[in-house]
């Protein structure tokens, strides 16, 4: 549950509730055209924490297909920047099809622009650029009772995770927050994550970026907040992803259907982002 990091999120969500009050919803299967396999979906989010990095390639599937899409295998995947080049390779073919790994790039990443080049076995080529942006120090993390929980708005107790950091000078910086509990990522999906723009941030911010439900955390658990630098385009990508999925078709709050933007060249989808990352961990104790 994120509250204000998306503009008017609360207004939109509450308006969306009216759809449930006044209209019925019925599942339907529509006769849709299909461009199965036409697009290559690139999931590339590289960070500078020294760990092994990966880029995932899949193909688009027909809408009602329940699989995650056909893996793109045996492709040539390279990232260039700072006068260096890194090749991403499938390590054990077929064990993680479509995943391409590199163990060296993470420690070499600096604040500069990187280029991704992909060539598939059927000679499709894709290109993307991403600039690694600076990231402020994440000073500390605290937890407090969500203001709505004080009024029993939710059925269960919700805790807010507060990030304390000094925003970088000037506007135009964007950050992405993830939450880990006992080193397990609790915010894997785009709609779970908290993209933040510094447009309305104070110079020093103590900001409830994410929330956690009492059922998902116990006293003594390790709670880790991760902060990444992202581009404005990636910030927009996450907000639009939310609008086009969680609010899809809502007659009160839905956005007109449109494709989620990408920084990949033609027939590419998804996003390639190079980020700097900071993490802070605490031992969770329920706030009084």
């Amino acid at each position, binding site marked *: 549950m994120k509250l204000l990091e998306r503009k008017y999120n609360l207004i939109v969500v509450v308006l969306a509730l009216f759809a449930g009050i006044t209209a019925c919803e019925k599942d339907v299967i529509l006769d849709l055209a*299909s461009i199965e396999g036409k697009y290559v979906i690139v999931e590339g989010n590289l960070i500078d924490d020294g760990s092994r990095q990966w880029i995932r390639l*899949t193909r688009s599937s027909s809408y009602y297909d329940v699989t995650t899409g056909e893996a793109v295998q045996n492709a040539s995947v390279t990232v260039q920047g700072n006068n260096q080049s890194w090749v991403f390779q499938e390590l054990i073919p077929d064990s993680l099809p479509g995943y391409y790994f590199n163990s060296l790039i993470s420690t070499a990443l600096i604040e500069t622009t990187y280029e991704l080049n992909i060539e598939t076995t059927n000679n499709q080529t894709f290109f993307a650029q991403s600039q690694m942006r600076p990231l402020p120090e994440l000073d500390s993390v605290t937890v407090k009772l969500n203001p709505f929980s004080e009024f029993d*708005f939710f059925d269960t107790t919700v805790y807010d995770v507060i990030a304390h950091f000094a925003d970088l000078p000037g506007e135009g910086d964007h950050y992405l927050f993830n939450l880990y509990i006992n080193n397990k990522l609790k915010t894997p999906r785009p709609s779970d994550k908290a993209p933040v723009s510094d447009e309305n*941030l104070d110079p020093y911010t103590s900001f409830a970026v994410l929330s956690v439900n009492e059922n998902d955390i116990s006293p003594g658990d390790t709670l880790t907040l991760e902060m990444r630098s992202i581009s404005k385009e990636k910030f927009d990508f996450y907000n639009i992803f939310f609008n086009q*999925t969680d609010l899809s078709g809502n007659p009160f709050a839905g*956005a007109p*259907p*449109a494709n989620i933007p990408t920084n990949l060249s033609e027939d590419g989808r998804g*996003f390639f982002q190079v980020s700097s990352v900071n993490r802070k961990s605490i031992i969770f104790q329920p706030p009084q």
Partner: protein
Amino acid sequence: MYQKTLIFLFFISISTLAFSEQRYTLRGSVRDASSGEYLTGVNIFIPEIDGGTVTDIDGKYSIRLIEGEYTLIFSFIGYQRFERKIVMDTDKTLDVFLQNGGLRLSEVVISAERTGRNVERAEMSTVNLDIESIRNLPAFLGEVDVLRAIQLLPGVQSAGDGNTGFFVRGGNADQNLVLLDDAVVFNASHLFNFFSVFNPDAVKDIQLFKGGIMPEYGGRLSSVLDVRMKDGDKNLFKMNGGLGLISSRLTVEGPIQRGRSAFLFSGRRTYADLFLKLSSDEAQRESQLFFYDFNGKMNYVLNDQNRLFFTGYYGKDVTVFSEFFSFDWGNATSSMRWNRIYNDRMFSDFSILYSNYQFNIAGEVGPASFNWQSFLNNVNLKADFNYIFNENNRFTFGLQSIYHNLDPGTIVARIEGAAGAEFDLSATNALEHGIYFNNEQSLFNDRLLLVYGLRNSVFQLIGPGNQYVFDRSDPLQWEITDTLQLERGTFYDEFINWEPRLSFRFKINEKSSVKASYNRMVQYIQQAQSAQSVAPYDVWYSASNNIPPQVADQVALGYFRNFLEDRIETSVEVYYKDLQNVSDIVDNGDILGNEFLEGQLRIGRGWAYGAEFLVQKQYGRLNGFMGYTWAVAKRQIDDINNGNAYFAPNDRRHDLGLSGSYDISKAWNVGMSFVYATGTAITLPVGKMFYQGAFAPIYSDRNSGRLPDYHRLDLSVTFTPNLRDRDSRRFESSWNFSIFNVYGRVNPISVSFAENSDRPGVPNSSFFYIPGPIPAVTWNFNF
């Protein structure tokens, strides 16, 4: 320009042809004998000249006749015919009172034209609706609604279930000028568009102009919906009302000074939310969802030359979700009109009009709160003059000035301990002026009727206000580069447009005519449209340095033919509309509370064409109509859909409306309506992508898919157990039983493409729809 001048001079020269014979003016008014209310659109037929006239909106008429003896036949649906011989040897006045009850009102369904008038008059693409006839149509939840009735007619498309918005000939819903006694109504809907703001008990007359729009109207591209309120009974106190499942209404009217002045007050309130009190869920018990509205009107006959009218409307919708959230919105309008008659050839109307629309979204939970208030204000000064040169030339001219104040408001959101946000959306102030003339000219013994006019409109933005400058290097994402703040009183953008309006009617014979029209319309303010949203957070914006005014040129051609002594009327119309400077929202544009909204819009062109067919039977125990429209509406905007043309959201290839009413006996009446329309053009997925464990749709070209076809059958039965004699004053009541969507068709409001809520990760699609069938019962009374 030279050619235009020549044409203009040609018309003027025709209109000033000298008449050698002695002519006299006959003028007067036509009123309801029991209430004293002036009747609009009464047909006055004079067999000796094989022609006649009709009363205007104030119930007045005037005609020039050569010296001689004439028979005047006054006829009006729902009233007894009145015949009178008159010798014209001097200028004369004849005021007529028509007795109610010439036909039982239930025998009248929608009259697209008064009897015979569809052939006679020059206007085409025009629809008159009789409020009494609308009552016989099946009503959604028992609430009689004028906007739903309009949607049954050819050329008018419904925006869908749960939506009183309507599209006219491929235009957007915001391109309809909706007027209540001349005052603009910005948002004509209640309860998230399920009902319209027009209380049927307070409405006298409705006219919809789809084309051939007279130059006295301006500011919208597609249509004018002119709703007139009842004046009130000058002689007797009356009360009527109704009790329904979800609402009740009450109207009182009567004389202030008998015979000279009258009042009418009408109010209604829904109370469906009272059922929420029975809920076991505390949050639902504390929720509210209702609307109320009031109409008031007073009119004074000061003397034979001067009359005053005051009209007011106030309506509000209130939505409270638990104790945490509230959302209310509403319209207020008021108008004051002074009608003055100078002599038997000239009269005028001076009006002061005010319109307001506002919404307020607010929420508060402990330390968390947000609030968004938005306003639209409009003050309109207007003067209209009618001058009758002779019986062949009616000249009208006038001018108006409108002050617009469009304030999207301030959005404040705060949560203690979290970053707050405050967005102050700058207001726009503007003046819109119009000056016009129009002449209606009869030629060749009324075989040819020409109507020609011109409107000049001027739009000026005035400070305080902001002018935005964008970097447009990325066509999909304009970046704001500068905001110029204009001081109070500074005029900073100005637009001037000429709007010619022409139409003609050629009478082939008494039963058939051919009509054609051309009109140019210009629109300076428009509403940001979200394709799917039905929520009433209307954001209007004006023409600016980034948004040029929209311009529509429409030509229409029609053939009108009556059968069986005008009992069956038929018409065929074809039209083509060219739209310049049409705007649409760029992919993933953010229109909700966006100060830089102009940067989300892209400008292009649009076009619409179609054919409309109407057959209707007006009299007898069985009556009704059938309207069919074949239409296309497209847009082409360079930065949208890769610059390729795409269907407008309101494109409907086929649209059929069928309505009928049958009197089983004096006490029992049954009514039905059936609608069929091609599904709305929407953007559908052609695939999906997986990213970070979630999928998202990949969409096709804009609006290249369709929702399923829309169709719906509604039925009603009206039982009037104690039908009173025409002249008695005793209590009368009736029961109306109706079923909306009899066979429970699922007509989607919108479609969602998201994962299955019960099975995460599994792609799903679902319709939002209004469930059916919906039965309703309403008890109506009057005494």
